[in-house]
Protein backbone atom coordinates (compact mmCIF):
# COMPACT_ATOMS: atom_id res chain seq x y z
CA UNK A 1 0.00 0.00 0.00
CA UNK A 2 2.86 2.34 0.85
CA UNK A 3 4.56 1.50 -2.42
CA UNK A 4 1.36 2.08 -4.37
CA UNK A 5 0.69 5.37 -2.61
CA UNK A 6 4.24 6.49 -3.35
CA UNK A 7 4.01 5.48 -6.99
CA UNK A 8 0.74 7.34 -7.47
CA UNK A 9 2.13 10.41 -5.69
CA UNK A 10 5.28 10.32 -7.80
CA UNK A 11 3.29 10.06 -11.02
CA UNK A 12 1.06 12.97 -10.06
CA UNK A 13 4.09 15.01 -9.03
CA UNK A 14 5.94 14.76 -12.37
CA UNK A 15 4.43 17.90 -13.95
CA UNK A 16 5.17 19.75 -10.72
CA UNK A 17 8.76 18.50 -10.84
CA UNK A 18 9.22 20.15 -14.23
CA UNK A 19 7.62 23.38 -13.07
CA UNK A 20 9.42 23.57 -9.72
CA UNK A 21 12.85 22.84 -11.17
CA UNK A 22 12.31 25.61 -13.71
CA UNK A 23 10.85 28.14 -11.26
CA UNK A 24 13.37 27.16 -8.59
CA UNK A 25 16.34 27.59 -10.90
CA UNK A 26 15.02 30.99 -11.94
CA UNK A 27 14.72 31.90 -8.29
CA UNK A 28 18.23 30.70 -7.44
CA UNK A 29 19.69 32.74 -10.28
CA UNK A 30 17.77 35.83 -9.15
CA UNK A 31 18.95 35.33 -5.57
CA UNK A 32 22.56 35.08 -6.62
CA UNK A 33 22.31 38.10 -8.89
CA UNK A 34 21.36 40.12 -5.80
CA UNK A 35 24.42 38.83 -3.97
CA UNK A 36 22.94 36.02 -1.85
CA UNK A 37 24.75 32.69 -1.88
CA UNK A 38 23.17 29.24 -2.21
CA UNK A 39 22.90 28.99 1.58
CA UNK A 40 20.10 31.52 1.33
CA UNK A 41 18.45 29.41 -1.37
CA UNK A 42 18.50 26.39 0.96
CA UNK A 43 17.29 28.37 3.96
CA UNK A 44 14.44 30.06 2.12
CA UNK A 45 13.23 27.09 0.08
CA UNK A 46 13.22 24.84 3.16
CA UNK A 47 11.50 27.26 5.56
CA UNK A 48 9.22 29.29 3.25
CA UNK A 49 8.40 26.89 0.39
CA UNK A 50 6.44 29.47 -1.59
CA UNK A 51 7.16 30.53 -5.17
CA UNK A 52 5.68 34.00 -5.34
CA UNK A 53 6.52 34.65 -1.67
CA UNK A 54 10.19 33.86 -2.21
CA UNK A 55 10.49 35.80 -5.46
CA UNK A 56 9.03 38.86 -3.74
CA UNK A 57 11.16 38.13 -0.68
CA UNK A 58 14.39 38.63 -2.62
CA UNK A 59 13.23 42.17 -3.41
CA UNK A 60 12.39 42.90 0.22
CA UNK A 61 15.83 41.67 1.28
CA UNK A 62 17.76 43.48 -1.44
CA UNK A 63 15.91 46.73 -0.77
CA UNK A 64 16.29 46.35 2.99
CA UNK A 65 12.55 46.66 3.65
CA UNK A 66 11.51 46.91 7.30
CA UNK A 67 10.31 43.78 9.08
CA UNK A 68 6.81 45.24 9.30
CA UNK A 69 6.65 45.94 5.55
CA UNK A 70 8.07 42.49 4.85
CA UNK A 71 5.43 40.85 7.05
CA UNK A 72 2.55 42.87 5.59
CA UNK A 73 3.52 42.34 1.94
CA UNK A 74 4.09 38.63 2.53
CA UNK A 75 0.65 38.40 4.12
CA UNK A 76 -0.97 40.07 1.09
CA UNK A 77 0.84 37.87 -1.42
CA UNK A 78 0.11 34.62 0.43
CA UNK A 79 -3.36 35.13 1.87
CA UNK A 80 -4.80 32.99 -0.91
CA UNK A 81 -3.44 30.01 1.06
CA UNK A 82 -6.17 30.60 3.61
CA UNK A 83 -8.77 29.61 1.04
CA UNK A 84 -6.81 26.47 0.13
CA UNK A 85 -6.94 25.33 3.73
CA UNK A 86 -10.68 25.94 3.90
CA UNK A 87 -11.29 23.54 1.03
CA UNK A 88 -8.93 20.88 2.41
CA UNK A 89 -10.31 20.74 5.96
CA UNK A 90 -12.14 17.51 5.18
CA UNK A 91 -9.47 15.80 3.09
CA UNK A 92 -6.67 16.48 5.58
CA UNK A 93 -8.84 15.40 8.54
CA UNK A 94 -7.32 12.57 10.53
CA UNK A 95 -3.90 12.68 8.92
CA UNK A 96 -2.34 12.74 12.39
CA UNK A 97 1.38 13.34 12.81
CA UNK A 98 2.03 14.38 9.22
CA UNK A 99 -0.79 16.94 9.21
CA UNK A 100 1.36 19.92 10.29
CA UNK A 101 3.79 19.14 7.49
CA UNK A 102 0.95 18.81 4.94
CA UNK A 103 -0.35 22.22 5.98
CA UNK A 104 3.13 23.77 5.98
CA UNK A 105 3.67 22.49 2.43
CA UNK A 106 0.35 23.64 1.01
CA UNK A 107 1.57 25.42 -2.12
CA UNK A 108 -0.54 26.35 -5.17
CA UNK A 109 0.68 23.26 -6.97
CA UNK A 110 0.27 20.76 -4.13
CA UNK A 111 -3.19 22.22 -3.50
CA UNK A 112 -4.14 21.87 -7.16
CA UNK A 113 -3.47 18.13 -6.93
CA UNK A 114 -4.76 17.27 -3.45
CA UNK A 115 -7.94 19.34 -3.80
CA UNK A 116 -8.95 17.70 -7.07
CA UNK A 117 -7.54 14.18 -7.17
CA UNK A 118 -9.78 11.18 -6.59
CA UNK A 119 -7.84 8.35 -5.00
CA UNK A 120 -8.54 4.68 -5.63
CA UNK A 121 -9.43 2.49 -2.66
CA UNK A 122 -6.04 0.78 -2.56
CA UNK A 123 -4.22 4.04 -1.92
CA UNK A 124 -3.69 5.37 1.58
CA UNK A 125 -4.65 9.08 1.42
CA UNK A 126 -2.46 10.07 4.38
CA UNK A 127 0.64 8.48 2.86
CA UNK A 128 -0.23 9.80 -0.61
CA UNK A 129 -0.60 13.40 0.63
CA UNK A 130 2.64 13.12 2.58
CA UNK A 131 4.65 11.72 -0.32
CA UNK A 132 3.23 14.28 -2.72
CA UNK A 133 4.05 17.19 -0.39
CA UNK A 134 7.54 15.89 0.42
CA UNK A 135 8.35 15.16 -3.23
CA UNK A 136 7.25 18.64 -4.26
CA UNK A 137 9.25 20.19 -1.43
CA UNK A 138 12.35 18.26 -2.51
CA UNK A 139 11.93 19.39 -6.15
CA UNK A 140 11.59 22.97 -5.01
CA UNK A 141 14.68 22.88 -2.78
CA UNK A 142 16.66 21.13 -5.53
CA UNK A 143 15.61 23.72 -8.11
CA UNK A 144 16.40 26.71 -5.90
CA UNK A 145 19.84 25.38 -4.95
CA UNK A 146 20.65 24.31 -8.51
CA UNK A 147 19.78 27.78 -9.73
CA UNK A 148 21.95 29.45 -7.09
CA UNK A 149 24.94 27.15 -7.64
CA UNK A 150 24.94 26.44 -11.36
CA UNK A 151 22.55 28.93 -12.90
CA UNK A 152 25.26 31.34 -13.87
CA UNK A 153 27.39 28.76 -15.68
CA UNK A 154 24.75 26.74 -17.50
CA UNK A 155 23.60 28.40 -20.71
CA UNK A 156 20.54 26.13 -21.09
CA UNK A 157 17.91 27.77 -23.32
CA UNK A 158 15.23 27.31 -20.69
CA UNK A 159 12.98 30.21 -21.69
CA UNK A 160 9.41 29.04 -21.48
CA UNK A 161 9.95 25.93 -19.35
CA UNK A 162 7.91 27.51 -16.56
CA UNK A 163 4.86 26.98 -18.78
CA UNK A 164 4.72 23.55 -17.05
CA UNK A 165 2.82 25.17 -14.19
CA UNK A 166 0.32 26.84 -16.51
CA UNK A 167 -0.17 23.61 -18.44
CA UNK A 168 -0.78 21.68 -15.22
CA UNK A 169 -3.47 24.11 -14.10
CA UNK A 170 -5.12 24.00 -17.53
CA UNK A 171 -5.17 20.19 -17.42
CA UNK A 172 -6.74 20.22 -13.95
CA UNK A 173 -9.33 22.76 -15.04
CA UNK A 174 -10.18 20.72 -18.14
CA UNK A 175 -10.52 17.56 -16.04
CA UNK A 176 -12.80 19.36 -13.58
CA UNK A 177 -14.85 20.72 -16.45
CA UNK A 178 -15.30 17.30 -18.05
CA UNK A 179 -16.11 15.50 -14.82
CA UNK A 180 -18.53 18.03 -13.34
CA UNK A 181 -22.01 19.06 -14.40
CA UNK A 182 -21.86 22.36 -12.55
CA UNK A 183 -19.58 24.83 -14.35
CA UNK A 184 -20.58 28.03 -12.59
CA UNK A 185 -17.75 28.03 -9.97
CA UNK A 186 -15.09 27.61 -12.67
CA UNK A 187 -16.65 30.34 -14.84
CA UNK A 188 -16.91 32.69 -11.85
CA UNK A 189 -13.27 32.00 -10.97
CA UNK A 190 -11.96 32.77 -14.45
CA UNK A 191 -14.23 35.74 -15.19
CA UNK A 192 -13.78 37.45 -11.81
CA UNK A 193 -10.01 37.06 -11.88
CA UNK A 194 -9.82 38.39 -15.44
CA UNK A 195 -11.89 41.44 -14.55
CA UNK A 196 -9.79 42.07 -11.41
CA UNK A 197 -6.59 41.70 -13.44
CA UNK A 198 -7.76 44.42 -15.83
CA UNK A 199 -9.13 46.70 -13.09
CA UNK A 200 -6.46 46.33 -10.38
CA UNK A 201 -3.40 45.42 -12.46
CA UNK A 202 -1.03 42.44 -12.32
CA UNK A 203 0.40 43.36 -8.92
CA UNK A 204 -2.76 43.69 -6.84
CA UNK A 205 -5.53 41.63 -8.43
CA UNK A 206 -5.34 38.40 -6.44
CA UNK A 207 -6.72 39.62 -3.11
CA UNK A 208 -9.81 41.41 -4.51
CA UNK A 209 -10.39 38.49 -6.88
CA UNK A 210 -10.37 35.97 -4.02
CA UNK A 211 -12.80 37.94 -1.89
CA UNK A 212 -15.12 38.61 -4.83
CA UNK A 213 -15.09 34.92 -5.78
CA UNK A 214 -15.96 33.93 -2.22
CA UNK A 215 -18.74 36.55 -2.15
CA UNK A 216 -20.16 35.37 -5.48
CA UNK A 217 -20.10 31.75 -4.34
CA UNK A 218 -22.09 32.85 -1.28
CA UNK A 219 -24.64 34.62 -3.49
CA UNK A 220 -25.10 31.48 -5.59
CA UNK A 221 -25.12 29.18 -2.58
CA UNK A 222 -28.80 28.20 -2.94
CA UNK A 223 -28.17 27.13 -6.52
CA UNK A 224 -24.85 25.38 -5.96
CA UNK A 225 -25.13 23.82 -2.53
CA UNK A 226 -26.71 20.45 -3.19
CA UNK A 227 -26.71 18.87 0.25
CA UNK A 228 -25.05 15.50 0.54
CA UNK A 229 -26.77 12.87 2.64
CA UNK A 230 -24.24 13.11 5.47
CA UNK A 231 -24.54 16.85 6.01
CA UNK A 232 -28.17 17.36 5.07
CA UNK A 233 -29.91 16.64 8.39
CA UNK A 234 -29.24 19.66 10.60
CA UNK A 235 -29.98 23.31 9.85
Amino acid at each position, binding site marked *: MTKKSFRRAFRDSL*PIMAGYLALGIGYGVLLQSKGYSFWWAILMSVTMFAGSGQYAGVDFMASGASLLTTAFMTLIINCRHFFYGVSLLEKYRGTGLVKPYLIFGLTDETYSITATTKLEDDINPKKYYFFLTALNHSYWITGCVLGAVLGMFLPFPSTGID*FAMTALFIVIMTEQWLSSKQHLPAVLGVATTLICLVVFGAQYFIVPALFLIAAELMIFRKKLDIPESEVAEDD
Partner: protein
Amino acid sequence: MTDVHALLQVGVMAVVIAFTRFLPFLAFPEGRKTPRVITYLGKVLPYAIIGMLVVYCFKGVSVLSYPYGLPELAAAVFVAGTYVWLRNTLVSVFGGVAVYMILVQLVFAT
Protein backbone atom coordinates in the same frame (compact mmCIF):
# COMPACT_ATOMS: atom_id res chain seq x y z
CA MET B 1 24.38 43.77 9.81
CA THR B 2 22.49 43.57 6.52
CA ASP B 3 22.84 39.79 6.72
CA VAL B 4 21.27 39.82 10.16
CA HIS B 5 18.40 41.93 8.85
CA ALA B 6 17.89 39.63 5.85
CA LEU B 7 17.94 36.63 8.18
CA LEU B 8 15.24 38.23 10.32
CA GLN B 9 13.25 38.98 7.17
CA VAL B 10 13.39 35.32 6.11
CA GLY B 11 12.20 34.35 9.59
CA VAL B 12 9.31 36.82 9.43
CA MET B 13 8.31 35.67 5.94
CA ALA B 14 8.44 31.98 6.90
CA VAL B 15 6.23 32.62 9.94
CA VAL B 16 3.71 34.73 7.98
CA ILE B 17 3.47 32.17 5.15
CA ALA B 18 2.97 29.32 7.64
CA PHE B 19 0.33 31.44 9.38
CA THR B 20 -1.69 31.86 6.15
CA ARG B 21 -1.58 28.10 5.66
CA PHE B 22 -2.37 27.06 9.25
CA LEU B 23 -5.09 29.61 10.00
CA PRO B 24 -8.10 27.72 8.57
CA PHE B 25 -7.05 24.50 10.30
CA LEU B 26 -6.68 26.36 13.62
CA ALA B 27 -9.98 28.21 13.16
CA PHE B 28 -11.89 25.02 12.33
CA PRO B 29 -10.24 22.23 14.36
CA GLU B 30 -10.95 18.54 13.73
CA GLY B 31 -12.80 17.91 17.00
CA ARG B 32 -15.51 20.49 16.43
CA LYS B 33 -18.16 20.58 13.75
CA THR B 34 -17.18 22.80 10.83
CA PRO B 35 -19.92 25.36 9.99
CA ARG B 36 -22.01 24.32 6.98
CA VAL B 37 -21.08 27.44 5.04
CA ILE B 38 -17.38 26.58 5.36
CA THR B 39 -18.01 23.03 4.17
CA TYR B 40 -19.90 24.48 1.22
CA LEU B 41 -17.07 26.88 0.34
CA GLY B 42 -14.60 24.03 0.68
CA LYS B 43 -16.57 22.10 -1.91
CA VAL B 44 -16.97 24.81 -4.56
CA LEU B 45 -13.76 26.81 -4.04
CA PRO B 46 -11.39 24.32 -5.74
CA TYR B 47 -13.23 24.82 -9.04
CA ALA B 48 -13.14 28.59 -8.79
CA ILE B 49 -9.55 28.73 -7.50
CA ILE B 50 -8.15 26.59 -10.31
CA GLY B 51 -9.83 29.01 -12.71
CA MET B 52 -8.17 31.85 -10.82
CA LEU B 53 -4.76 30.15 -10.96
CA VAL B 54 -5.02 29.67 -14.72
CA VAL B 55 -5.63 33.40 -15.16
CA TYR B 56 -2.87 34.10 -12.61
CA CYS B 57 -0.39 32.22 -14.83
CA PHE B 58 -1.19 34.55 -17.73
CA LYS B 59 -0.91 37.77 -15.73
CA GLY B 60 2.38 38.76 -17.41
CA VAL B 61 1.05 38.29 -20.95
CA SER B 62 0.50 41.43 -22.97
CA VAL B 63 -2.20 41.07 -25.61
CA LEU B 64 -1.56 44.57 -26.95
CA SER B 65 2.07 44.17 -28.00
CA TYR B 66 3.98 41.57 -30.03
CA PRO B 67 3.53 38.57 -29.92
CA TYR B 68 0.03 39.40 -28.60
CA GLY B 69 -0.16 36.38 -26.31
CA LEU B 70 -0.22 34.05 -29.31
CA PRO B 71 2.36 31.54 -27.96
CA GLU B 72 0.42 31.28 -24.70
CA LEU B 73 -2.91 30.90 -26.50
CA ALA B 74 -1.60 28.27 -28.92
CA ALA B 75 0.08 26.24 -26.18
CA ALA B 76 -3.00 26.49 -23.92
CA VAL B 77 -5.27 25.26 -26.72
CA PHE B 78 -2.82 22.41 -27.35
CA VAL B 79 -2.87 21.41 -23.67
CA ALA B 80 -6.67 21.50 -23.30
CA GLY B 81 -7.24 19.88 -26.70
CA THR B 82 -4.86 16.97 -26.16
CA TYR B 83 -6.29 16.44 -22.67
CA VAL B 84 -9.88 16.24 -23.93
CA TRP B 85 -8.66 13.84 -26.60
CA LEU B 86 -6.26 11.57 -24.65
CA ARG B 87 -7.00 12.32 -20.96
CA ASN B 88 -3.30 11.97 -20.20
CA THR B 89 -1.81 14.62 -17.90
CA LEU B 90 1.82 13.94 -18.72
CA VAL B 91 1.33 14.06 -22.50
CA SER B 92 -0.57 17.35 -22.27
CA VAL B 93 1.80 19.03 -19.80
CA PHE B 94 5.10 18.02 -21.37
CA GLY B 95 3.75 18.41 -24.91
CA GLY B 96 2.41 21.84 -24.00
CA VAL B 97 5.77 22.90 -22.56
CA ALA B 98 7.56 21.69 -25.70
CA VAL B 99 5.13 23.58 -27.96
CA TYR B 100 5.47 26.72 -25.85
CA MET B 101 9.28 26.59 -25.70
CA ILE B 102 9.53 26.14 -29.47
CA LEU B 103 7.13 29.04 -30.02
CA VAL B 104 8.87 31.53 -27.72
CA GLN B 105 12.42 30.49 -28.58
CA LEU B 106 12.17 29.90 -32.32
CA VAL B 107 8.91 31.07 -33.89
CA PHE B 108 8.23 34.28 -31.98
CA ALA B 109 11.85 34.94 -30.95
CA THR B 110 12.56 38.62 -30.42
